[in-house]
């Protein structure tokens, strides 16, 4: 259970980010290191100015899906940003921003929420992911 789980996050909607946060927390809880790599719209969602905002849902969610998500939030479900923070607290989790996506979005390190640990390129990520699985969300 100690091979690193590499999670590449591409989608920036609340549904996929919440799913990714749950996977990260679950892996961290069973002692599995997680290396999260933020690309494109997932990276955009981690901006300090946007992280607590509404990031919508994938089109397939439809109105019913959005209503279900709103109901979970109203019932006290933690936002995905908080689940990622808790995952870091209980296990070996690092969250890195893709340097190419930083360029794409004209971002600097200071623009990102502190839950993001740093910026790295794809080679560094691949090295860190090692022989573990790499999942693209």
């Amino acid at each position: 259970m100690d091979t690193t789980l590499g999670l590449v996050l591409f989608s920036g909607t609340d549904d996929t980010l919440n799913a990714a946060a749950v996977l990260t927390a679950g892996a961290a809880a069973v002692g599995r290191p997680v290396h999260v790599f933020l690309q494109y719209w997932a990276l955009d969602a981690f901006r300090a100015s946007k992280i607590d905002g509404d990031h919508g849902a994938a089109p397939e969610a439809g109105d019913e899906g959005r209503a279900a998500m709103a109901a979970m939030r109203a019932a006290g479900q933690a936002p995905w940003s908080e689940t990622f923070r808790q995952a870091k607290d209980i296990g070996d989790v690092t969250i890195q921003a893709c340097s190419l996506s930083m360029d794409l979005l004209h971002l600097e390190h200071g623009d990102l929420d502190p839950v993001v640990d740093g910026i790295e390129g794809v080679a560094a990520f691949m090295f860190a992911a090692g022989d573990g699985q790499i999942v693209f969300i």
Partner: protein
Amino acid sequence: MTTLDIAQRVDAKGLACPLPIVRTAQAMKTLASGQLLEVLATDAGSVKDFDAWSKSTGNALVESGADGGVFRFVLRKK
């Protein structure tokens, strides 16, 4: 019925996955080896989750039961 010496209790009733396990992992960090942690949860998936968590982390699942809709787990820190 033996009374267990519970060092800490986690009330995860009403919390959905992954919070029961997350709260348990957080609480377990504060315990010393051999101490017991009791968790109450209502999440339907928690029975399998706690069994799996116990096996993965080596923190023994000393008791696992249900009373009404509430699951009760007692774990020993390894």
